[in-house]
Structure formats: C-alpha cells, structure tokens
C-alpha cells in the first residue's frame, strides 16, 4: 500500500516536535478522517529557519508532515508557499488514491503556518 520511502518517513519522521515561541503555527485538520496536523515555523530574514510538526493521523499524514517540513526548511516564505501536495507525493513516490488528501493536509498546514506568521507580523506593525 505505502512506498518504502513513505514508510521510512513514517518510521523516522524528520522535524517531529514542537517549537516553543514559534513565529507561526498552522493548525489544520480533515473533518472526514479526523486527522490533525500542526506545523510550527521559526522565520529569520524571510526564510524558514526552523520547522516542526505534531500530527495525529494516519501513516500518510505522519509521512507527509515529515516531508513537507524537509521541503520547507531553509526556503524563503515565498518559495515555501509554492510547495504543493504534488511535490510531497513526488518525494514519497506516490500515495494510494484514498490517501491523496493527506498530502493536501501537509500543504495546507505549511501555508497556514506562513499565513499565521504574516498576520502576526502585520499585527506588530
């Protein structure tokens, strides 16, 4: 069902955990499957200096969380915003049809974190 690549990310998730005093937090969930993903980012000079996730969800949700953090880390916010769920799927060498939406959760989680950061910045000024 799942690729070797996915199982590796699931077993050894990268950037798992929480960032205290994160600059932005994205909290997303899928009402159907009930899965929930929180993405924390630390931003320096418009760049994602650090990123972590917490996920309650299926194997694919965990793996896509892991992948999206790897993809985003070090990128400028503008670059990071352009990461799509397809990029995540590509890294994972495919997802079962029923599990496509898990990668969408990851895409949405990252974008929500960036938006949260931007809104907080706006609020400061």
């Amino acid at each position, binding site marked *: 069902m799942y690729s070797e690549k996915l*199982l590796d990310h699931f077993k050894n998730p990268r950037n798992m955990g929480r960032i205290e005093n994160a600059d932005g937090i994205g909290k997303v969930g*899928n009402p159907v499957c009930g899965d929930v993903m929180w993405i924390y980012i630390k931003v320096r000079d418009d760049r994602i200096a650090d990123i972590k996730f917490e996920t*309650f969800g299926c194997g694919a949700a965990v793996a896509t969380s892991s992948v999206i953090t790897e993809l985003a880390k070090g990128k400028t916010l503008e670059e990071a915003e352009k990461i799509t769920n397809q990029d995540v799927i590509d890294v994972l060498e495919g997802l079962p049809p029923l599990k496509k939406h898990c990668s969408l959760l990851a895409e949405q989680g990252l974008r929500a974190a960036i938006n949260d950061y931007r809104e907080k910045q706006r609020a400061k000024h």
Partner: protein
Amino acid sequence: MIYLDHNATTPCDPVVLEEMKKWFTEMFFNPSSIYTASQRAKEAVEDARKKVARLLDASSEEIIFTSGGTESNNIAIIGTALLLKNRGNHIITSLIEHHAVLNVCKFLEKNMGFQVTYLPVDKYGIVDPDDVRKAINDRTILISIMAANNEIGTIEPIEQIGKIAKENNVVFHCDGVQVAGKIPVSVKKLNVDFFSLSGHKFYGPKGIGALYVRKGVKFKPVFYGGHQEKGLRPGTENVPAIVGLGKACEIAEEKMAQDSSKEKILRDELEKKLVERIPEIIVNGHPEKRLYNTLNICVKYVEGESMLLHLDFEGICASSGSACTSGSLEPSHVLLALGIPPEVAHGSLRFSLGRSNTMADIERTADVLPEIVEKLRKMSPFWNKK
C-alpha cells in the same frame, strides 16, 4: 509473525485443505451430472451439508451453500424483502451491524421503498430486546440482528429477540458470521429463521458460506439459473470449498471448548497488561458478554493506522475495526454507536485471537504496544496539549 486478526480471516486448517484436494483434481465432477463419479461429488456435498447442519443444530434440508457471509446476509434480507414487500415495508436492524447488513438495508431504503429502523445500542454495544419489541409495527416484515459484533465482540441477546420476533410473527435473520464455529449455536434455541455463516472465519476456505433457512420459511432467490440448491442459489456447486466448510464445522465442534478456554485466558491477559501499561485507554465491548477471542481498545490521542503500521514493523498483525472498512476514512460506526467521540474512535485497535496464538505472542504484543503508543503520543498535538 504474530497474527492477531482472526476476526478478519483465519488460515485454512491444513486438515481442511487436505480434505479438499481430491475434489479439485481426481474428483472434480459436477454434482448435477448423472454418472457415478458425479454422484460421489453429490454425496460429498450432502455430507458437508449434514456437518454444517450439525454445527448449528439444524437439519440438512435447512442449509443452503453460498459464496460467503456477505452473500448469506444479502440473500436472506433481499430475498425476504422481495417476497414480503406486499405485506409490509419495514425492517428493524441495529446501528452496529456489519456493512453486509447495513448497506443492504440502505439499498432497500433508497431503491425499494423500505423503511428501516436502526436500533441504538448501550455503551457495551448491546441491543435491548425491548427496543426491538417497541420498534415492531404492522408493516414490519424482518428483523436482522447480528449474533456477535465483529469489531468489539459483544454478544447480542438473540434468543430473547428471536422470541419477540416469533410472538409478533416477524421473520428474524441473524448474522452469525462471528459466532459460527466459535461458540455453540442452536438455531432452534435461538428462534432464528435465517442464520448466516462464512467458512474463512473459522479455519475453513474463503469463498464459501452457508445460510440456515428454517423449514417452512421462504424467500425469493436473488440469483437465477440452474436448479442447484433447490434453485435458491444456482450455479455449479463449489464442491471443494463445500467439502472444506463441512470439515471446518466438524473440527470446530471438536476444538471449540478447548480453543475458547485457551483464547480467553490469552485475551484476558492481553487486556490486563495493556490496561496496566498504557495510560488513558478504553476497553470496548461488554466485559462478559463478549467473544472470548476479541479485544478492542481505544488509545486516546493516537490514531489507529499509525499504531497498526508500527505493530506491522514488529511483525504483529492487528486491525482497527473491520477489514472491509479499511477502504474508508471514517471512524468505526460501531464505536460511534457506543457513544465514543470520533477523535477517540480513531484510536481504535482490534486484537482477535485464534488457535495458533501463544502466551509469548501476548507478552510480546504487550511489550511492544506501550512503546509504540508513547512514540506516537509524543508526535500528537492532542497529547502534548494536555
């Protein structure tokens, strides 16, 4: 490998397979043909029918072979609906039935003008016979309640419900797929009109099942064709599988007492250890009125599939609910019916034991799962929030 998913399917007993073999090759004949060799095949079919009947305390003429539990449920329910639709259009079932009952009822609602009452259950998953009685109206033609639930193992009060059905002259179907071959069944005592079973749930072959049809009870066939199974289930008889099912029934009768006491000890031990070692878990189903081989838990703040994958890495096979719903994303309809919140229901695990399991299997599982839960909880926003 540690296999703890016997409610999904069981290995075919090697003795059963051995018994089947010659009916594939040397004795491959069509039981409906006229020559002597075919008559041997016919006798083998009738011999198997007797064995199935004996397991259920029925008589041979009351047993029809089908392609499995799903078909047995479907033809009993659709066949009764087709036959009695002019007498009434109301069916009573429960919220926790298998999809092979629930989705049939939904089909009849959507496409054939039937009304279906889905009875609630208590927090243990038990249907109240009094609710059944109250739900009966003068258009009620069928009650369908399962003997034991496949996910949580809760055993329903079939005998009482059967009595109520009889008093009210309503046909009563019982999905017995999870009890046949596991606990003693007497269709006579249970007052059922139809009773479904499936071979692969008790060490028989896949693709074969049976439907008990009480003498005098009629239904309209769903398939049409040749005269096999009195025309109620046409198609060339699956002789090897029928022989295998018969053998599995025979073996089940022999081993039932021993299997049940052994598996109960193992299951109870697993339950005890997991409850001790993992904080914030819930044991689902009735504490006593439960299949001796089934343990269903909800591990709060963790999602079921993730646990299953980690268990698989450790060589442990389990499930989170029924196998047939693994293609679905929603939490178990059974657990929701017990009143468990969706986010907790998502963290369900079902361990279902079988003949081959040992105390070592249990110990290893009870060692491994707490670590897995801890690892996943570390990752869970809900756990970390607490």
